[in-house]
């Protein structure tokens, strides 16, 4: 391996470091106008009327459009995006603009187009909306009780979906269990809060009726499809391009009302229109994760072996379906993963509330499943007076049993089979790095000094590389440059470098000779984009396959031209060379020789071009795993938690670029710490956001990060030629569980149980006061 496995310099870095990135707000087009949206300040209200007169009269305002203005130009009004599921009881899709009802604070009901954003905001404030406030559904559990206000006036109730995930005879398992323990857990995850908010720039070429939308999105092809559906145009008329994206983390994979409305505004106004989301909008108009309430029981035998887990979970869906029920599905599905659990039943109720819709944020429901299992295992250990690591050892799927067929099904119906990995070995390494066995005497010594330290661990398994495919085209041009095009989408996770590495491995190992274009529907017809930690697996697999094909072709051409056998050739830099000699053929010359000359046949048996497009289909997911061990110190007087050290041993299969993998893990860990201690998107009982700025909603800063030690195991997956698994989300997944376990350990003198995330200093003080 010449470039794969090495931490090569990133293709992305130089322009970004010099401030030459081209993010959505950096795009300037001649005649471009700027937009602002009029948004509901009410969580639930009837909209009786919209008066645009004052807004339209403001100098510099070009248009104000509400639903009525857009309807004649919309082939369909609603975004039908929900991932298929038999569990839906209601179809609640987002409209382009709210019509006669607003169902969450921040819902857009009109767009103002003006000379600049300053004027657009002035005008938006002048749009007079006659609201009749209605009762709002706020708490997702209360929303499901009889007589609760419905999030939508026309809905009979707030149950959006319900499903059971079950296998094995769970009630029988509980009936014969030596021990049964129950936990009620509240888990909250908040928003994505990429440092760059959302944005879109739309340009319509009227004579040709071609629309171009630049969008800070993770899924340009899905956006293209929805624009075509909603605007009644075909794929040839709509192009979606992702510029540089300043972080995605999940919420940018969603297609939003602002995207289609900005596009339509550009068409109607006849000039390019730019809309850039500001941070206040991000809090109320971009999807987020929120609350899950779990009520669960675990049954174990007298040796702490799991017999069954059963319970219920209520998930806050928000006011509309902006992605599906995949998030609670992932949570329910993830809880048992990695352990041998003979029986399971989780009833999941997905509740509508008058809040912005919920869709996955980095981790996508898996951290919640892990938290449930790991809290239950800690409970078992505590009650049976066993070491927490030992309880896990007794229940982890052993390495010898891999690949391990579970009794769970992924959302597409495939049985979940854990492809590779050695979970006990991973846990063992993590415990070693963390000094788990040396901790008890350290804890006692600290206690004598009046300090409270604790240690906790959590294991996780997460499906990555969600299929079915990602498209990649590899082409060697007459210039000799290697061009890569993909339906993958970059958002900071080094997609371009990854693709370049995979391709360069086959075609000369010179990353400077590779160009990568990703996230543009105009250069590749199909794509699924960035989510589910999928792109290294899916785009990597297709890039490898396409580059291998192009390599074969190139060697065939060189073999013919240089009159040597295939096996005597290698590709080095921009040349195909005869091994151990100076005889060579430039890649560009090779490309030209199969580009064709009018009237002349191509060389014998050659197909035209040095190009290949691949959509490698892999339906089964590749399961990444890891173990996190956290050491904390708690100031029991203030409740402050300091994470003294964090260890994460991780297995993402074959590592293509060690430094990038570590960067992904560190970023995920930071996010996990945010979920454990800081990030809480709070609403009041009227579904009004309480934390509405970054001063109230706390993101992790540099001093809050602990020293982290990373360890790696590499269990290549048999599911793709490279043996790679995804890593993008994995750092997040075990952190809240490990940190809460450590806090609980630190507070062992106080008989405190941690059953919620985030856990704040004030919560800890209250728990200590109530517990002792």
């Amino acid at each position: 391996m010449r470039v794969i496995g090495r931490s090569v310099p990133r293709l992305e870095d130089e322009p970004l470091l010099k401030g030459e990135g081209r993010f959505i707000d950096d795009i300037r087009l001649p005649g471009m106008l700027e937009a602002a949206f009029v948004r509901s300040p009410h969580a639930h209200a009837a909209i009786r009327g919209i008066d645009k007169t004052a807004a339209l009269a403001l100098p510099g305002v070009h248009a104000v459009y509400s639903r009525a203005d857009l309807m004649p130009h919309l082939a369909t009004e609603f975004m039908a995006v929900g991932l298929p599921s038999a569990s839906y009881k209601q179809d609640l899709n987002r409209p382009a603009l709210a019509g006669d009802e607003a169902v969450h604070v921040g819902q857009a009901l009109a767009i103002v187009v003006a000379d600049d954003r300053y004027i657009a905001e002035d005008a938006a404030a002048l749009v007079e909306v006659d609201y009749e406030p209605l009762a709002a559904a706020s708490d997702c559990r209360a929303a499901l009780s009889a007589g609760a206000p419905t999030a939508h006036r026309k809905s009979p109730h707030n149950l959006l979906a319900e499903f059971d995930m079950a296998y094995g005879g769970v009630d029988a398992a509980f009936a014969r269990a030596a021990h049964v323990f129950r936990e009620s857990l509240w888990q909250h995850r908040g928003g994505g809060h990429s440092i760059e908010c959302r944005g879109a720039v739309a340009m319509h070429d009227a004579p040709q009726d071609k629309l171009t939308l630049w969008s800070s999105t993770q899924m340009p092809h899905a956006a293209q499809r929805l624009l075509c559906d909603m605007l009644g145009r075909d794929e040839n008329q709509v192009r979606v391009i992702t510029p540089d994206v300043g972080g995605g983390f999940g919420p940018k994979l969603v297609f939003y009302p602002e995207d289609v409305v900005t596009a339509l505004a550009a068409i109607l106004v006849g000039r390019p229109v730019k809309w850039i989301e500001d941070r206040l909008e991000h809090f109320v108009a971009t999807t987020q994760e929120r609350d899950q309430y779990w009520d669960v029981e675990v049954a174990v035998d007298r040796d702490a072996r799991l017999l069954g887990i059963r319970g219920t979970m209520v998930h806050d869906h928000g006011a509309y379906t902006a992605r599906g029920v995949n998030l609670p599905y992932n949570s329910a599905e993830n809880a048992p993963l990695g352990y041998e659990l003979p029986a399971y039943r989780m009833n999941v109720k997905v509740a509508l509330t008058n809040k912005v819709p919920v869709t996955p944020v980095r981790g996508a429901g898996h951290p919640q499943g892990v938290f449930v299992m790991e809290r239950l295992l800690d409970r078992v250990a505590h009650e049976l007076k066993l070491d927490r690591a030992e309880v896990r050892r007794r229940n982890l799927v052993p390495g010898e049993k891999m690949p391990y067929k579970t009794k769970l099904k992924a959302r597409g119906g495939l049985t979940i089979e854990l492809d590779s990995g050695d979970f006990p070995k991973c846990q063992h390494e993590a415990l070693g790095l963390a000094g788990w066995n040396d901790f008890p005497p350290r804890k006692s010594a600290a206690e004598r000094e009046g300090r409270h330290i604790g240690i906790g661990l959590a294991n996780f398994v997460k499906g990555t590389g969600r299929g079915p495919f990602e498209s990649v085209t590899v082409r060697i041009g007459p210039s000799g440059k290697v061009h890569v095009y993909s339906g993958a989408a970059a958002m900071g996770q080094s997609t371009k470098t990854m693709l370049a590495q995979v391709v360069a491995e086959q075609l000369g190992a010179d990353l400077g000779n590779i160009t990568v274009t990703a996230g543009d529907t105009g250069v590749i017809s199909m794509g699924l984009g960035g989510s589910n930690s999928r792109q290294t697996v899916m785009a990597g697999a297709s890039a490898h396959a396409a580059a291998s094909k192009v390599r074969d072709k190139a060697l065939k051409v060189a073999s013919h031209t240089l009159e040597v056998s295939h096996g005597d050739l290698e590709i080095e830099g921009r040349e195909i060379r005869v091994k151990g000699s100076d005889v060579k053929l430039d890649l560009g010359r090779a490309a030209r020789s199969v580009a064709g000359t009018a009237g002349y046949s191509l060389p014998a048996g050659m197909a035209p071009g040095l190009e290949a497009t691949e959509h490698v289909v892999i339906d089964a997911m590749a399961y990444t795993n890891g173990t996190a061990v956290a050491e904390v110190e708690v100031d029991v007087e203030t409740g402050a938690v300091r994470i003294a050290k964090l260890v994460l041993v991780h297995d993402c299969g074959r590592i293509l670029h060690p430094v990038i993998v570590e960067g992904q893990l560190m970023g995920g860990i930071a996010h996990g710490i945010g979920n454990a201690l800081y990030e809480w998107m709070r609403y009041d009982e009227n579904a009004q956001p309480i934390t509405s700025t970054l001063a109230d909603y706390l993101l992790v800063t540099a001093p809050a990060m602990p020293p982290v030690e990373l360890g790696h195991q590499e269990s290549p997956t048999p599911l793709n030629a490279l043996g790679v698994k995804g890593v993008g989300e994995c750092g997040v997944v075990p952190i809240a569980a490990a940190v809460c376990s450590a806090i609980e350990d630190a507070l062992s003198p106080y008989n405190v149980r941690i059953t919620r995330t985030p856990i704040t200093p004030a919560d800890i003080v209250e728990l200590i006061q109530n517990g002792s």
Partner: protein
Amino acid sequence: MSASRAISVTVNGARREAEVPVRLTLADFLRHRLELTGTHVGCEHGVCGACTVLVDGRSVRSCLMLAVQANGREITTVEALAPAGGGLHPLQQAFRDHHGLQCGFCTPGVLMTLVEFLSLNESPSEAQVREAISGNLCRCTGYQGIVDAALDAAKRLRA
């Protein structure tokens, strides 16, 4: 009282004259009037630090200054870091070597914060670096790459 003012600002060593609305922020002036889009806007309420530039050598959140307040001042943005003849500033090089950036959106703000910091503290400890960038939010990196880059850059700049 007019809604615009004429200002004269030195930006990255070059004198720039413009007539600007009095409410135009410095960040928007740099980005949209001068087309120096390296400085980014992330929150517009003084928390994320993505808009950090130097004003008379001191790091400032440009979203919290009006363009008219920059009249007569010297502004330095990320575009001034790389040497005119090519290559990268040692700080930029260190970021590249230590994977100190992923999406790159917070990066210019972090770089400008570190330029001032390293001019005040040539041999910082890790804790001091973390404190120095405590007003810059990064959602991608978990900060480790940034810290490693800053410590390495400090060494290079001392050499």
